[in-house]
């Protein structure tokens, strides 16, 4: 039996020894507290719900991006490989052409580009 219930019982019996002097004010105070707790719980539940939906959306987006990366249209061609092999690639293209991911363009990148160009894996542009 919580405090609010005890006070409500006392309010209707008027004989309990523990009844405070200002019984109604105490009841209202405890009622407010209970209502505030209820609101807090609801707010927490809503946050958990929103968080779950956001997490699920993020997972779906990551999967979609991953699929796109695996199934990207053929944006690289043999001309890119040749420029990389000859050291003639524009430094602005490093992000696109650096397939080894070592931050520089060299023969290994040209090799990887060629491998990707001739790969028979399915692509979205087919």
């Amino acid at each position: 039996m919580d405090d609010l219930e005890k006070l409500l019982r006392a309010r209707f019996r008027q004989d309990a020894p523990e009844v405070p002097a200002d019984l109604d004010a105490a009841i209202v105070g405890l009622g407010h507290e209970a209502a505030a707790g209820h609101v807090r719980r609801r707010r927490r539940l809503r946050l958990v719900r929103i968080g779950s939906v956001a997490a699920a959306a993020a997972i779906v987006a990551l999967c979609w991006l991953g699929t796109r990366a695996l199934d990207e249209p053929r944006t690289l061609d043999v001309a890119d490989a040749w420029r990389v092999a000859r050291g003639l690639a524009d430094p602005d293209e490093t992000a696109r052409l650096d397939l080894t991911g070592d931050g520089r363009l060299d023969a290994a990148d040209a090799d990887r580009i060629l491998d990707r160009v001739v790969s028979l894996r399915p692509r979205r542009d087919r």
Partner: protein
Amino acid sequence: MIAFRLLVTLAAALLAFGNPPQDPAATHAPGFQVLDVVVDTGAIPLAAWQLEVTVEGALLVGVEGGEPAAFRDAPRYDPKALQGDRIVLAALAVGDELPRGKLRVARLHVTTNGSSGNLTPVLRSAVTADAEGRRFEAHLEVQASGEGR
């Protein structure tokens, strides 16, 4: 000796009567064809090329390099393409001597089931690059070389 003669006679009889003559039109004996990949660059030196080829009714069994020294090595391709009918070829010349004009840059070996008649290769994703690595329009074709039949 008698047994040997009997065996030889039996073998001759089997050879003579065992294989009745067949209708040549109904025979689909597998055959080999050689297809040349030819690029015509005009006056522009060829530094790199790529091409996707589909040869319906045939299976790719081999890829060979081309005629110019810069493209004599076999072009790059996905090994999974062999025993299939689609392949993507790519080659680049890293030397300074770049060929130009009408060039046989690669050769494809295919098998047919004998009923395919003339093969009609379908070309896609053709790219050619010049001595600066710039793409340019060149005429590419895959044609029967007449060898290997």
